[in-house]
């Protein structure tokens, strides 16, 4: 058993190596590179706790290795009977009191930050222009209703940078959890109107931030991704203006898209909306063309869109679009031509000049 020390050291080094290799994760996804106030505050708390743990850990491990090396039974001393100590008042007091003190050091900022993060009433001066958004989690997408702005949209959440944006979170089927790790911690969305949650998010810089559902919500839970698009306040205002004034009945340019529009209005509109409308069965598609991803996960291009329209079940098992119209699960599948037309229509829905690219350009 002499290899004990050696083996753990190798293990340890190996671990460090792996970590450096993988870095701290993907920027704008990882919680280890905070890009927003909430994540920042939490990161500090995390680091404080890590420091405390390292201190305690070093002490424990020092005693541990000392004991294991020093007090192993020697071959020539098998009959040695150690002194049978009952305990030691001083030592026992020591390792009761010191942890208590360390925990107090951790508890105070914990409580403070818990209250700070829960403070969801805007301050007096911000009251007027604070953005408040009702977020609804649905299997397996997100819907946003901007209070007072008459904008409703889905999947990509546009927010202005540098200010606290207030969220009211609910769900319309099962519990989901709204999480944008590099901006802030998560909060559950509860079904029913009795348990609406509130939180705020504040992105420091412009950017496209990864959001994930963090509460098991069915087969496609892992695919319920979304994006938060933080743009400058001016850009945000323009985006809001564009979205508000969207002409929901504009005639598309290409013929194929016009045919697509017809198809859309005949069958898709029952579940999806274009223009401000409450959360339906499916996501609001007003600015579909500028979505970062299709269905939250596929790169936004025509090929993927056609694939999605025709075989949604293969891409997101258990989603509510499957079987609602002519896709794989139905008797008369959507023809390739129809899918093509629909795609053409959807991919020109682009009411605002403010798109994720604006946010990304700033990064």
């Amino acid at each position: 058993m002499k290899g004990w020390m050696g083996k753990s050291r190798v293990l340890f080094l190996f671990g460090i190596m792996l970590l450096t290799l993988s870095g701290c994760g993907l920027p704008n996804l990882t919680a280890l590179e905070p890009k927003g106030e909430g994540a920042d505050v939490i990161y500090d708390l995390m680091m404080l706790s890590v420091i405390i743990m390292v201190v305690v850990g070093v002490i424990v491990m020092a005693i541990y290795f000392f004991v294991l090396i020093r007090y192993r039974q020697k071959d020539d001393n098998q009959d040695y009977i150690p002194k049978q100590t009952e305990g030691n008042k001083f030592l026992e007091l020591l390792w009761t009191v010191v942890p208590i003190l360390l925990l107090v050091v951790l508890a105070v900022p914990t409580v403070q930050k818990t209250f700070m993060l829960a403070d969801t009433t805007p301050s007096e001066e911000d009251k007027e222009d604070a953005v408040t958004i009702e977020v609804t989690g649905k299997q397996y997408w997100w819907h946003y209703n901007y209070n007072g702005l008459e904008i409703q949209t889905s999947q990509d959440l546009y927010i202005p940078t540098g200010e606290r944006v207030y969220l009211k979170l609910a769900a319309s089927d099962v519990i989901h959890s709204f999480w944008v790790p590099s901006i802030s911690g998560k909060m559950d969305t509860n079904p029913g109107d009795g348990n609406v949650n509130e939180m705020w998010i504040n992105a420091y810089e412009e950017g496209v931030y990864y959001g994930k559902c963090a509460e098991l919500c069915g087969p496609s839970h892992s695919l319920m991704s979304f994006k938060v698009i933080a743009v400058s306040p001016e850009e945000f205002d323009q985006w809001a203006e564009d979205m508000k004034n969207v002409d929901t009945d504009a005639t598309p340019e290409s013929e194929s898209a016009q045919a697509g529009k017809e198809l859309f209005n005949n069958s898709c509109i029952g579940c999806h909306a274009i223009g401000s409308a409450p959360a339906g069965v499916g996501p609001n598609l007003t600015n579909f063309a500028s979505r970062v991803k299709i269905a939250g996960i596929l790169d936004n291009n025509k090929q993927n869109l056609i694939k999605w329209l025709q075989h949604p079940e293969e891409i997101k098992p258990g989603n509510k679009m499957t079987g609602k119209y002519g896709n794989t699960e139905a008797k008369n599948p959507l023809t390739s031509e129809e899918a093509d037309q629909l795609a053409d229509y959807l991919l020109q829905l682009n009411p605002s000049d403010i798109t994720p690219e604006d946010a990304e350009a700033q990064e």
Partner: protein
Amino acid sequence: MSTATAQKKGFGATLWDYLTTVDHKKIAILYLIAGGIFFLAGGLEAMLIRIQLAVPDNDFVSAGMYNQLITMHGTTMIFLAAMPLIFALMNIAVPLQIGARDVAFPFLNSLGFWLFFFGGVLLNISWFTGAPDAGWTAYAPLSTTSPGHGVDYYVMGLQIAGAGTLIGGINFLVTIVNMRAPGMTYMRMPLFTWTAFVTSVLILFAFPALTVGLFLMMFDRMFGANFFDPQMGGNHVIWEHLFWIFGHPEVYILVLPIFGLFSDIISTFSKKRLFGYSAMVFATVLIGFLGFMVWAHHMFTTGLGPVANSIFAIATMAIAVPTGIKIFNWLFTMWGGSIRMTTPMLWTVAFIPSFTLGGFGGVMLAAAAADYQYHDTYFVVAHFHYVIVGGVVFGVFAGLHYWWPKFFGTMLSEKLGKLAFWPFFIGFHLTFFIQHFLGLMGMPRRYWKFLPDQNLDLGNLVSTIGAVLMAIGAVIFLYNVIVTSVKGEKVSGDPWDGRTLEWSIPSPPPFYNFTQTPLVRGLDPLWIEKRQGNGKMTPAEPLGDIHMPNNSFIPFVMSLGLFIAGFGFIYQVDDSKWLGLVFVGMLITLGSMFVRSVKDDLGYHIHKEDLEKGAGSE
């Protein structure tokens, strides 16, 4: 040894013997076998999970299948593997450690086992028709609206198994209170017995909350009630509370007996009395007490508000103090000792840093604000596998090596034991350490697949490789068990130079345990006799007739009835004809309760003369 008996008695007779046994040592073996099989099943599920997550965007299993796998993995491991394996250890050791001939309620002990067993079988039958898929926590409304019968199996299986656990808990409580040998005061009980006691207390007060939660879910799913349906005025948060009011104490139910076991092992293999015995007892009780006041730390992101979150955060952190007391007392038991690195000790020594790391993760999670980041990510998965695998599973391995002689009268090979340890230990850290980082890097838990290009690939691959190493370790352990059983080499009653009463009698013990009840003169009674006496326990009574309970088939039948009724309940949703099965099942159960109630069961005596001839000690 059981196989030797088997050859003597023939297979049928042995089987019947085990189906009807009320002997705590045989029940321990039953728990060991059933729990072991369920552990393998849970481990297999874990391997499938890890294979699915080995590479990004994998399609090894389907999304629906994945959710079934994690649900069954969690449920199986907690309820059907860890708990029964701990019950196996408690059953073999507690009566022996307190110098009792038997447990307080041998009949109920057997009933507890069979209820657990049938509950577990019921749950696993769901694999053939679609397993539960709402996570082991079964949060409503996902669980109440989950199609198919998977969650129904979860509800019925856990209800039946849970009843068994509750009964088992009460049995241990009364056994420890009423059946101690003369001189075995509370403050002389071995730590394992103490922790078994406190764990049983936790079972007694935690399981009823689960029982009610499961009933409510059963009513919602099967009989149209509205407890968790917001449209009808229900509230799913009630389920979360009930589940965790049970669920948090449950994790201490799992780990406390293991703490006790490690205390015994460390003291034995350091040749030292446990350092700070009374502080250890006090810490155990305190952990148990605090364990009931922290459950909402699993619900920090539910939205309870900052006041509730802060209170529960502080209460949770407080548990680090008594746990720390334990860690340091273990270290100082070894301090100045003469440490023998046997296999049980090896697992124990590996446990200390592993569990401490897991505990650190726990305290970090307890910081409510920070938990908004950790919650429902792989950070949590890492935390609880560190405490559960690094604590409970290491503990079960240690305990099995330690008490194998008392189970079967043979010794597991030390060489193979150590050979199994290393891959398991290294694999364990590989699998779970990196998961802390995966979580913080943005990987939520219960994710069927993670997407490529999110810097999560390497970490997941490492984790999977670690899991393979663990499986190798587990297989070597199995090999060890088989080899040992085939060889069947007998060992003495006291192969480890033990300190407590179980080592004062032969391995395996005769079915009446102690020919004469021993007189206990202090903590570590056998050690005292070895140092100050002739190395043998002084009897507290003259040799006399021993009263023993009768075997009974009723526990099996009673549990079978519930098992049958369980199917009825599950399928009456589709067709009310299935209610017939409910009646048949309940009739069997109530009928056998009736029989139990009206039939006198007075047991029998082993006569003094037979004892002198050495009956029972094969």
